[in-house]
């Protein structure tokens, strides 16, 4: 895979975010797609490749009136869209299609036209995890963290600082769901959801969507906005069962995906101006900073608590407010990608100075999968 050969030339979220009970899930995909087409100055007939998760690519293509040459229905949870970017790069480079539309839409709060997500009682999760009272991500995704805190010496207050930091970014973003500043004490004393996670360390539950359009870099300058080049990507999976993670304190999928993306991009961590780490819960940026190599073992909590990821800090992270404060429809990865695109374009609500390289890292399922996309303001650096 050669770096900078493909670029994002269209990017947009749904017109509204938050509570959108007047739109079904498929319409959220379409609303975001139409906004992204307008952003790129393209019509529906210009799209010949479709990738999506949550809905089938067949359904999205037909709903939008697209007859594609290429589809990708990779669905590995919230980072699926990072994987779609990676696969789209390969498809465009190898000539399978010319212009890929990646869509996301999720009626996560209002549940309008959204399918169910229950494990069969005969699946391995159904037999060996579901009997023990897990109630979705708040009780399952969170399960490894006490082991992480013990093994790394990270404190509950340091983990709480993740929520505090991201709220500071959200305060600068008019589209963020939660904007009021909070303190570490307020986070720790908020309503307990699943010890040790309080409400403000758990993601929002909202409706929304987003879409991206990618083309070959050699025609990326022909569009209305500054192209955002794909410098490197990575993907991996580990296990659909949280109980079977190889090590509860580190994500194998994060490490594989992150290392591959950095290697493809040919950059080191010092070149990174901006970082998104998918934060369905407050512990994920801790795992992400360490597993991607931004922090040493046990250092991520203090790194965040000391303000390094805040506005003005040396590694601005989750600058839209993240899944904790901006929005979280269920599969948040698309919103992290959108924020990386905005930061590289220079159009973010809380814009970081001179972002030439943005790393966007996603998780799928509950430490089940991972995808990483490194974006740049120029094709070669």
């Amino acid at each position, binding site marked *: 895979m050669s770096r900078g050969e493909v670029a994002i030339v269209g990017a947009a979220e749904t017109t509204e975010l938050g509570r959108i009970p007047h739109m079904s899930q498929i319409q959220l995909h379409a609303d975001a797609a139409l906004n992204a087409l307008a952003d790129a100055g393209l019509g529906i007939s210009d799209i010949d490749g479709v990738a999506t998760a949550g809905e089938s690519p067949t359904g999205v293509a037909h709903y939008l009136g697209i007859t594609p040459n290429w589809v990708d229905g990779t669905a590995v949870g919230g980072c699926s869209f990072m994987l779609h970017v990676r696969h789209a790069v390969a498809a465009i480079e190898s000539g399978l299609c010319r212009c890929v539309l990646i869509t996301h839409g999720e009626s996560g709060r209002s549940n309008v036209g959204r399918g169910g997500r229950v494990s*069969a*009682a*005969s699946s*391995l999760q*159904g*037999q*060996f*995890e*579901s*009997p*023990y*009272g*897990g*109630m979705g991500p*708040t*009780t*399952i995704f*969170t*399960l*490894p*963290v*006490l*082991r992480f805190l*013990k093994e790394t010496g990270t404190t509950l207050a340091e983990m709480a600082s993740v929520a505090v930091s991201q709220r500071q970014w959200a305060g600068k973003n008019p589209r963020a769901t939660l904007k009021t500043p909070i303190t570490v004490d307020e986070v720790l004393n908020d*309503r*307990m*959801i*699943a*010890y*040790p*996670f309080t409400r403000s360390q758990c993601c929002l539950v909202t409706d929304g969507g987003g879409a991206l359009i990618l083309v070959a870099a050699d025609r990326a300058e022909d569009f209305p906005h500054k192209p955002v080049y794909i410098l490197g990507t990575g993907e991996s999976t580990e296990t659909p*069962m*949280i*109980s*079977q993670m190889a090590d*509860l304190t580190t994500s194998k999928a994060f490490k594989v995906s992150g290392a591959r993306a950095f290697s493809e991009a040919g950059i080191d961590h010092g070149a990174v101006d901006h970082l998104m780490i998918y934060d369905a819960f407050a512990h994920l940026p801790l795992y992400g900073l360490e597993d991607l190599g931004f922090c040493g073992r046990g250092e991520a909590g203090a790194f965040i608590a000391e303000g390094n990821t805040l506005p003005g800090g040396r590694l601005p992270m989750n600058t839209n407010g993240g899944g904790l404060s901006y929005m979280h429809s269920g599969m948040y990865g698309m919103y992290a990608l959108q924020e990386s695109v905005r930061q590289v374009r220079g159009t973010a609500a809380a814009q970081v100075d001179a972002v030439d390289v943005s790393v966007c890292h996603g998780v799928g399922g509950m430490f089940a999968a991972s995808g990483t996309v490194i974006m740049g303001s120029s094709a070669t650096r």
Partner: protein
Amino acid sequence: MRIDFTQVPVPVPTPETEHFWAGTLVGELRLQQCIDCQTTYFPPRPFCPTCASRAIEIVCASGRGSLASYVINQRPHPAFDGPYAIALVELEEGVRMMSNLLNIEQTPDALILDMPLQVTLQPLSDDIVLPYFEPRGSRS
């Protein structure tokens, strides 16, 4: 914390897991071990996840383990009468299982990581007996 065992989602065995549930029915916690590379593993599958050998055998776990991690869920669940821990238990044999913890307070003060645990089996139906864990030395 009390569990209403009539409200626990009942596992449905498959051909690959049938030996596990046949084991709990007769008081055994059964794992699998690779004859070629000696890896003991869980959850069940008819080949070794380390070396892919199909030469595997069923072995009985000691039932002893320790508390690897947990959360204490505060939201109501029909099978539980109050906040309850969902735990990850590391067995002596080196495999990890999800479970609940019986015969102990469901509080951060009582639930100490690495505390020694032992298996305790509870019937959910005529066919399915579910493994739970309790502090080692409990007389359940």
